[in-house]
């Protein structure tokens, strides 16, 4: 069976646009804002949002990417390798962080990201933006900015495609 497209290109753009507007609404002035994208696709989405903010405000908001593969609590022997060298590691202390990921599912990735962020600094606030919230949370985590809520069955897979690596922008349910 073919994949089912649940978010087409235009809707995906609109979702990112709306998330950007909502980030502006909640972060008056955009001061001390840092976008943190969770690798791989979250990073691209973070840059897209930064692009949008730049179009609107003429200011580039710093973007940092983190790789939390080694921070997952469901992976034994995790340590603090975020895949960041010193230059990429921004000072996030006293900053308003918006953590960005493509899909919100059990919440474990986010929790790991929170751990990682707190590990490297002391942010003022952390908010969460996701392109897709598919439900099935296992932890008390809720996104502040959601592109689209897509109810799913546990056994389904959600795949986010981004132009930068997949050659198209879309969200599909993979069978």
């Amino acid at each position, binding site marked *: 069976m073919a994949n089912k497209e649940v978010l087409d290109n235009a809707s995906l*753009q*609109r979702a990112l646009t709306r998330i950007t507007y909502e980030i*502006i*609404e909640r972060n*008056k002035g955009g001061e001390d804002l840092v976008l943190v994208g969770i690798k791989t696709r979250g990073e691209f989405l973070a840059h897209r949002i930064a692009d949008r903010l730049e*179009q609107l405000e003429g200011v580039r908001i710093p973007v940092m990417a983190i790789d939390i593969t080694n921070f997952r609590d469901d992976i034994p022997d995790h340590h603090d390798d975020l895949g960041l060298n010193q230059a990429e590691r921004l000072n996030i202390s006293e900053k308003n962080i918006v953590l960005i990921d493509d899909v919100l599912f059990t919440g474990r990735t986010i929790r790991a990201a929170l751990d990682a962020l707190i590990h490297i600094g002391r942010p003022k606030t952390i908010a969460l933006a996701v392109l897709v919230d598919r439900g099935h949370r296992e932890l008390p985590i809720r996104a502040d900015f959601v592109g689209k809520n897509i109810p799913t069955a546990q056994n389904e897979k959600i795949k986010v495609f981004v132009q930068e690596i997949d050659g198209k922008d879309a969200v599909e349910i993979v069978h």
Partner: protein
Amino acid sequence: MKRHLILEDGTVFEGLGFGAPATTFGEIIFHTAMTGYQEIITDPIYDGQMIVFAMPVIGAAGIHAEAYESVKPAIRGMIVHDLAEVSVNRQRRMNLDRFLKQHNVPGLYQVDTRKLIRHLRETGPQKATIVDFADDHAVDQLVATVLTNKQVQNTATLKPYANPGRGRHIVVIDFGLKHGILRMLGDYDANVSVLPYTTSVDEVLTLDPDGIILSTGPGDPRSLPDSVLTLIRVLQTKAPLLGIGLGHELFALANDATLAPLSSEHHGMNHPIQEIISRQIFFAMQGQGYAVDNDSIDRKKLFVTYRDLVDGAVQGLRHREYPAFSVQFFPDAAPGPLEATAVFADFFETVEDYVEHHS
């Protein structure tokens, strides 16, 4: 029959009469849209105006049941180059000539409309009249006529009414609403309450809306009472809000921006509009003589979301603190390009998100 169009600056155009044989007065503007004449002449934003169409042949698509933007023509006169005849059938319910006759609106055809438009492009809109004889008496009458600035009062509903649906509850504040907005809300199965613009804050809030729309409407928004601006200032903090056309201008005024006349009035669907955030260009029906003065915008309150790439005019605003935004162009695609309807998708996604987070 030979009839005449007289402009306030004394210019006279000759043509043949169609529609009603009445004498008429109004402000004359030109429209470059090539399609959608029925929607345009029934759109309440043109209340009290006369429209010259650049499209040289008008009428060949007839009058359709589904192309009304209000139940009758809003215009005072219609000037075209060539008037087409059609047969009346299941689809084309009526022809333009008969439609205008029924509603006592005069038209003039076989006019050198290109000359007239090139003239109006230089002078801007003017008072004008369609009469049988272009004599001194007609000119005196025209000069003496004072056109109303009560167009909103003429066209907006006086009483609340509902357009029920099973989806989100949307309150529309009516300043001279066009049907296209209701059609779009219908597409989202919204449960719609249309309220007069004189409604109080409490009357709106007791309805507990999921979203609020400030409708399109005719004329100069500054002729409306200040109570409207007060109403908007409160409502924008209570639920997602979308202002369209006149509603956009009022949203701007409510947030301390001012309006300035455009260097040239624009009525048509050929200007590229850019969504600033995504740089995407699209086209939409536009009809405006004023625009929000870019320099008057308090950037701490509002930011610009859309711009007309031809004249640089502000085409959309958004509040920094609330899910409240507005567009100058007409996103209901009646008539006009369908890509503009994405504004309604934005609005309903905002509404869904708002409901999600505030329930």
